[in-house]
């Protein structure tokens, strides 16, 4: 059996090399990519065009001329309305997410410019508890939209979320209604709302603001849906078709206006705003 154990050790050491900060494996083509080169390419695989997830701050830099000229409500922090405990207390889970990602919960909001045009922008961060929407996300998005109305500026939301945050129970569900009520006011005011969907956007976020854009854009190959693929598979007890719930699938079924590669996102948004403002 000695030869067997030796083989196993070799595998582990190989894995460790790939997982290091220097290299990242592409989920699209399996290519091992140099992390710095990937970052320079907006975290899009130079070989196959696969879009890796990108941190929220990087999206802010990508989309706005000079980043946030003003960040909104960075001091909002999660409360624990239910005293929720599963495998660990919710309070602890939030603290861990904060030390990993930063203290601004699963969305950054603020004001800036896109090719000189003032906008209000929200960018979700999947790394913060799966980009889940609890009270803080709902409140920050609602306030961002309200500021759009006050400033007569277009509103943009870039989504990346697993859905409503279970640990805040019914209060998370109510954020769907709250953010939609804010969008209703924005719409009354005749201001544009662009929704940009990135990988992944599912559940309560899709079932509220992410699908309510005057124009809905998505990055290529993103998973977008109401129910997650696993839930659907368990419910219908059959395999899902190839490409199910991808951006391309949603475009084909009439749920998106267009799919835009990350490198063209800002230019497309600027042109759209030109048409709509």
């Amino acid at each position: 059996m000695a030869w067997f154990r030796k083989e196993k050790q070799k595998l582990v050491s190989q894995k460790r090399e790939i997982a290091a900060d220097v290299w990242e494996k592409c989920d699209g083509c399996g290519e091992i990519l140099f992390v710095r080169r990937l970052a320079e390419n907006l975290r899009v695989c130079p070989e196959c065009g696969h879009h890796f997830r990108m941190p929220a701050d990087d999206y802010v830099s990508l989309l706005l001329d000079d980043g946030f000229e003003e960040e909104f409500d960075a001091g909002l922090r999660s409360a624990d309305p239910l005293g929720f405990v599963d495998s660990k207390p919710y309070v602890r889970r939030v603290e861990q997410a904060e030390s990993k990602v930063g203290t601004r919960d699963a969305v950054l909001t603020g004001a800036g410019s896109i090719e000189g045009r003032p906008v209000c922008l929200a960018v979700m961060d999947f790394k913060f508890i799966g980009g889940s929407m609890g009270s803080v996300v709902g409140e920050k998005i609602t306030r961002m939209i309200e500021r759009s109305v006050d400033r007569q500026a277009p509103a943009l939301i870039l989504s990346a979320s697993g859905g409503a945050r279970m640990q805040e129970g019914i209060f998370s569900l109510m954020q769907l209604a709250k953010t939609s009520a804010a969008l209703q006011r924005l719409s009354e005011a005749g201001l544009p709302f662009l929704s940009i969907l990135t990988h992944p956007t599912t559940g309560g976020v899709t079932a509220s603001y992410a699908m309510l854009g005057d124009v809905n854009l998505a990055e290529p190959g993103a998973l977008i849906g109401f129910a997650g693929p696993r839930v659907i598979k368990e419910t219908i007890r059959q395999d899902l078709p190839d490409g199910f719930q991808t951006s391309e699938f949603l475009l084909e079924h009439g749920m998106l206006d267009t799919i835009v590669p990350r490198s063209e996102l800002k230019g497309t948004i600027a042109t759209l705003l030109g048409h709509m403002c």
Partner: protein
Amino acid sequence: MTADKGSLEDIRQQLDELRKRAAERGLDLKSEVGDLERRLEDAHRDEMETLSRYDRVHLARHQERPFTLDFVDYLCSDWIELHGDRKYRDDPAIVGGWATLEGRTVMIVGQQKGRDMKENLRRNFGSPHPEGYRKAERLFRLAEKFGRSVVTFVDTQGAYPGIGAEERGQAEAIARNLIVMAGLRVPIVTTIIGEGGSGGALGIAVADRVLMMENAIYSVISPEGCAAILWRSRDRAEDAADALKLTASDLADSGVIDEVISEPPGGAHLDPEAAARTVGEAIVRHLDQLEGRDPEDLVRERREKYYAMGHWEERADA
């Protein structure tokens, strides 16, 4: 006195017996009957107090609870059911139509479960497809056009997670209803009558007043679904139900619901008609308060109500 099931059943039998005898022989047994009724109510109250949250989940799903069409039957006249979303098909998991409620025309919309397997298959166990939400949207707009109030009944384990539902935009259909209901210029009164299952419930539940029956539940996710994700086992649904705090009494002071409607002793399934009447009285009372209001005020106050929902801390120094 502790109320085990035996004593509850005993009291109920005695009461039936007494009522029968009074009716047959024309005897005046009012005080005896009243006495037993009080004892029955006490026994039920004791029993209800010992129910766990997960017991309430089972009660909320009880097959004999009044469903949407039962409320229509008990409370309304001149019911004309309206079918179809005008886009794809009619979804029998959501019913809707014009009805007269206490002298006024209202638009009723609600999820509809079936009582037997055949009807449940037809109604997909009350789990709507996008067409159901789009039918609801059509009816909301119709009510608005003719200045009639909207009355909705929520009873679903959730919007259906299937291939067709995703293809036809389940998320968009629900999202659309949220924004449409937020801006609707007529009163909306919603009652959670059984299961209030997440986005599938909320898709017809953005309202000026949200009422909830005593044994109904309202939650961001089913306890089984929550247990599967957070505890990695559906067997922990009981723990999930406790953690989610999804009963009417849990939500009573949350600002999410406006009133808890008490049910007959032992639950609505034991006396669906009486349960429906109590709900009807509450709906009418709220409609009386809302009808005739300026539509601008109505929409603004509805929005402000939802704006206030949620819990967060605010630090100036960040």
